[in-house]
């Protein structure tokens, strides 16, 4: 029973962390129709920045500084690597995203010297608490609540403010919204900024539970978060969050299954789910049905 609770709790927590990454994917895809392959690496870079910053300054400075730098990184990537290709075929932009991901990983390897880096302990997050007989860290408990707060705030932003309205318009129809006087470059930048911000928060929660950050640490969570976004219906923020929670919980249940080599299939499960979803219901749980115009 204790074991079951701890499995579920860590599933919810991992799911919450995936959700924070998945929002970045789903917003960018909704607007640009681009799978931002570099998003997982931005998540990894946020972890590395936190390590280097916290080594040289107190935590209450390092934490916001890491978040701000990650936001700057996400913004810069969009301006340098995606904006010049706005009128290019979609495949070129995706290749550019893969190139950025390659660059970020190689730069991370260069900076760290290829060594796995110890993530600093954030006081309060790593201490242990007992819930229903299961011993878990505080981060596991906090994550789902933090995710819900952030998501509610984000949906308010998108549904109530002018910027949010512009975002919805651009997601609906790129060209027409341009004709209506919406500055699409600003809107796209805002999407990248929000995405990177949430990825930075997600990386703090995620890496607190893992001892190390390696240059490839972002690739797998990134892909899983993208699967979560597809599962929930790409473009839909509540969908991405629910998809991420489902994937996180399923993953931890599979990890706990008592058969030989179950951990092997944790990553594979996500992709099986992806293929099943794409074949059975490509629009995902909450996605809008899009018709291809000839």
């Amino acid at each position, binding site marked *: 029973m204790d074991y079951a609770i701890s499995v579920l709790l860590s599933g919810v927590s991992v799911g919450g962390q995936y959700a924070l990454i998945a929002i970045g994917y789903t917003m960018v895809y909704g607007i640009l129709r681009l799978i931002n392959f570099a998003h997982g690496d931005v998540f990894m870079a946020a972890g590395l920045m936190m390590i280097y910053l916290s080594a040289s300054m107190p935590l209450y400075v390092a934490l916001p500084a890491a978040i701000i730098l990650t936001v700057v990184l996400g913004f810069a990537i969009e301006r340098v690597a995606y904006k010049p290709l706005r009128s290019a075929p979609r495949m070129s932009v995706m*290749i550019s995203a893969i190139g950025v991901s*390659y660059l970020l990983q190689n730069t991370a390897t260069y900076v760290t010297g*290829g060594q796995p880096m110890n993530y600093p302990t954030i006081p309060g997050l790593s201490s242990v608490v007992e819930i229903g007989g299961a011993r878990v860290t505080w981060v596991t408990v906090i994550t789902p609540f933090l995710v819900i707060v952030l998501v509610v705030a984000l949906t308010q932003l998108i549904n109530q403010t002018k910027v949010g309205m512009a975002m919805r318009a651009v997601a609906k129809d790129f060209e027409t919204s341009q004709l209506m006087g919406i500055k699409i470059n600003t809107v796209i930048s805002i999407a990248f900024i929000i995405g990177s911000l949430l990825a930075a928060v997600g990386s703090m929660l995620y890496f607190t539970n893992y001892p190390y950050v390696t240059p*490839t640490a972002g*690739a797998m969570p990134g892909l899983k978060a993208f699967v979560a976004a597809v599962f929930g219906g790409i473009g839909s923020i509540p969908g991405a969050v629910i998809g991420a929670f489902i994937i996180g919980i399923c993953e931890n249940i599979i990890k706990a299954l008592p058969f*030989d080599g179950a951990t092997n299939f944790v990553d594979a499960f996500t992709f099986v789910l992806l293929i099943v979803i794409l074949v059975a219901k490509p629009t995902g749980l909450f996605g809008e049905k899009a018709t291809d115009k000839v």
Partner: protein
Amino acid sequence: MLQEKKSRTGAVVGLIFAAVMLLLVIVLENTLDLPSGHVLYSVLKKGAVYSLVAVSMNLLNGFTGLFSLGQAGFMLLGAYTYAILTVPSDARDAVYYLFGGSAINFSLQEVFGALFGNSGAGGAVSLVLGVLLAMILGGLVAAFFAWLIGLPVLRLRSDYLAIATLGFAEIIRAVFQWQALGPITNGANMIIRFPNFSNFNITNADGEVVLYLSSFVPLFIATVCIILIVMLINSSYGRAFKAIREDEIAAEAMGINLAKHKMLSFCISAFFAGVGGALFAMFAGNAQAMVYTSNMTYEILLIVVIGGIGSVSGSVIATFLYVACSEWWLRFLDSTQAFSSPTEPTRIFFIVLFAVAVVGGALMLIRRRRRKGEPFWKEVIVWVIAAVLMAWWVWFIVTGALTIPFARTGFRMVVFSIIIMIVVLFFRRGIMGDKELTDVMARLAKRRAVRKAGKEAEQ
């Protein structure tokens, strides 16, 4: 009629070129006085393997317009099929020691050995036949899995197809690392001791090498496969693939069966990726699932982009450039003490290359800006960066410095990925665009002929 004749000349020129290159490799390998482990040989071998995989990816991405990222998965299938079928039976207990021996207790070259004999010429024949058959079976296994996965995913749109095939490659990787399949796949351990390229060196009775063929063999196999792919591209199937790439709806209206042709292209691409995977296992000397990650697919995709999407010769050129740069020419960036003396040839080479790259790149970017009429400040940025780099260059020459700033382990890959990003952003057509080497040569010849005719008319 004219068109047909031209393409035939191109094919003949291409074939002769390939044959000359292959002969040159044999001659050089046997006359050059380099240690057998020299990096040139590994560049040639890896280049051969990667160029085959890159061309197979280009067939799918460049000629059929299907954006698939499953190449590493198909390579894995080919590599494992090859390795499982060719480990000699007396080595199997040692290779599969964790699982108490292998479930499969024969190897293909021994099966042929029973027919042709195991030593001398018979041994050579059975080795060649066994390896070839294993390679083809590797390709077929990859093609079969491509067919299975293609049934559901080929209906998807471009980027969904990419992510689904990427996911498929990850699933395959997980399955092959599963300990329960250990007696066949050796679990998470690598499979070793199967024949690799150096087994093809011809030795005399004392075991001394008479004729080195270890670089020739992969290049030869890759050349044959690439010729097959080119023949396919030039056939009516290839024209159907290109029609699908240009416009699916129009192609369908012209009577092309979309599902059938997409599946055909997908399976053939997977077949050659499987053969490439078998070659890669031979190159590496082991088959190990953890090598075939999505990063490998990305690497091959970037090669295809650098060479030009839709150009076979571009892919081949880009592969050798890519492999040579990453394995050899940019190596010196990885060491803090890059050079040993101011007049060292590699240092002079670096100085020349650096100047050419900076000046050439800057000129190309400036010309591009003027042609497109973009704002002037973009040109100023290029000027400033180029000036700073050239100032450092002058300082580097004058002081005779032996170190390159920032150079230490990993710097090579950073520089390399920046170069790739510049290609992706500014030179999107890659080296060749969608032209072939033979097209370019034909155009040059034509231009020369026109000039000559012009001169004669003047006289």
